[in-house]
């Protein structure tokens, strides 16, 4: 199934918002990413085709922004803020706890069961609730290291229950 067949109406709505079609490239890439799991070369070319912009330009965009993924990711992408002030308020301890629990390094590695990807990220604008992480761009606030296991169990349970998940944050809630 092509993007147009599944999300045609949404794509047309997005394209109509701008005086130039290529302005819709960021939202369309999110749609492609959720549809295919990550941005394969074919997915990127398909977005270029829909918009009518050179594929090279879309590849350039994909490479520039940090929320586009060109390799398979876990069902949950965990992005821990390691910036100031989080790093002085327990973020390093949290990262260590998550690395220990998942058995990987927080450099974008994914667990073998495909459940979690763990990354360090820069400030996510929730410094008053440090340490903080985003799970598929949903905020988890005041997450001290001792609460890491509990969170992982909860996220695993939600994924196993068949909840619709979006690594692009298109399902994020407050």
């Amino acid at each position, binding site marked *: 199934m092509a993007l147009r067949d599944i999300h045609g109406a949404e794509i047309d709505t997005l394209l109509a*918002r701008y*005086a*130039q079609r*290529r*302005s819709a*490239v*960021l*939202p369309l*890439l*999110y749609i492609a990413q959720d549809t295919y799991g990550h941005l394969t070369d074919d997915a990127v070319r398909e977005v270029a085709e829909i*918009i009518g*912009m050179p594929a090279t*330009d879309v590849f*350039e*965009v994909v490479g*520039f*922004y*940090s*929320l*586009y993924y060109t*390799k398979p990711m876990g069902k949950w992408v965990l992005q821990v803020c390691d*910036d*100031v*002030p989080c*790093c*002085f*308020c327990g973020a390093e301890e949290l990262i*260590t706890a998550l*690395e*220990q629990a*998942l*058995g*990987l*390094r927080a450099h974008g*590695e*994914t*667990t*073998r*069961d*495909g459940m979690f990807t763990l990354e360090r*990220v*820069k*400030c*996510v*604008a*929730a*410094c*008053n*609730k*440090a340490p903080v992480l*985003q799970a598929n*761009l*949903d*905020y988890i606030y005041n997450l001290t290291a001792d609460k890491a296991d509990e969170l992982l169990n909860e996220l695993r349970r939600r994924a196993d229950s068949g909840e619709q998940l979006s690594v*692009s*944050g*298109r399902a*994020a*809630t*407050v």
Partner: protein
Amino acid sequence: MPPLTEHIVLRDLDIPNIRDFDVYLQHGGYEAFRSAVTEKTPAEIIGMVKDAGLRGRGGAGFPTGVKWGFLPKDVFPRYLLCNCDESEPGTFNNHQIIDRNPHQLIEGIALSAYAVECHTAYIYIRGEFAAAARTLDAAIQNAYAKGFLGKNILGTGYDLDVFVHRGAGAYICGEETALMESLEGKIGQPRLKPPFPAVAGLYAKPTIINNVETLANVPMIIGKGVQWYRQFGTEKSPGTKAFSLSGHVNNPGNYELPFGLPLRELIYAPEYGGGMRGDRPVKIVIPGGASAPWLTADKLDITLDYEGVAAAGSMLGSGAVIVLDETVSAVELAYKMDEFFKHESCGKCTPCREGTWYLTKVLHRVSTGHGHANDIPLLHDVYNQMAGNCFCLLGESAVSPIRSALKLFPEEFEAAIRNGTPRQAPRLAIPLVAVAAD
């Protein structure tokens, strides 16, 4: 100074559930906009914003009404952009405004769009604010349903569309010209100025770009009047500022204060910061976001307004106040701050792209106890080559942490290099279970 009896921007603290459209309407929501489009001319709105002395809250502090006046006459279409690409370390008030008081922002955008005579406005929101983007989408739908947005608004013949545009993870897109590049579907690299956005911005059309907090002020200025607004703050900095207080204080959070409150009060007053964690002394205060020069504990009596902070050699910037205690090493803080700028450098100009890389590399080895004997002069050399030579403010900002650290705490750098002992214990070994092949 007593706490504000009434908030201007963080009105969620006064009115529970103001994030609900009905509650917002019950408390006078959209009355300012209604009165503007039915009774006032765009020029009158601009005049009121000018008279109120509203200054841009995104960091530069430029007078908003004056900015709006830069638009060339009779050139259309024009665009209004709301900059919600928050944040740099320590900045988080836009997040609260959108989460808890989104309709006031939408009304502010509608009012400002009417004032600058534009018919399309975009809210550029950072990609990580996925939930906040949905909140805004819903708030915009509410406004359309009641006829506050769309065609022929309230029967006046004025049309306005507002769209949310989600970025995808790039701090540089908060730079206004990079934001417009990104909105045009390109990578977010800044443009050369001039031409300034007011002359040639989005799609090379006249464009006004304002921060979330700035725009959220507008409904209160138009609704309650210039006199009312100017009762808060100082002569040169009227109104309030939503300060984002974070770090080692007991009660981190957003506190909306009139300009002019002493820094000490923000940190120690029970209704604000509530003092330092564990009663430790303050070591470093970064008063205006990552790019602001650092202050030490002897500067706590400065007042929090643009002039007061500038007089102490720093800047109020975005009002992000990070307070750190003596458990933090200046070397490590400089490293973490410059790591941020390195990560977010767009790569367009060499001083920033290479300079942040060098700074981070050298600071990392010094902070982990592997510093070289000549690293201090090397650091001075690198940031001096960056200062004044970067294409945009991101690179210039990266100079600030390292320059502050070397100026205020040279002995920590010397000790770190001389002693050569890692400050932190080595990381625990990672058990090799279930690592996927890359």
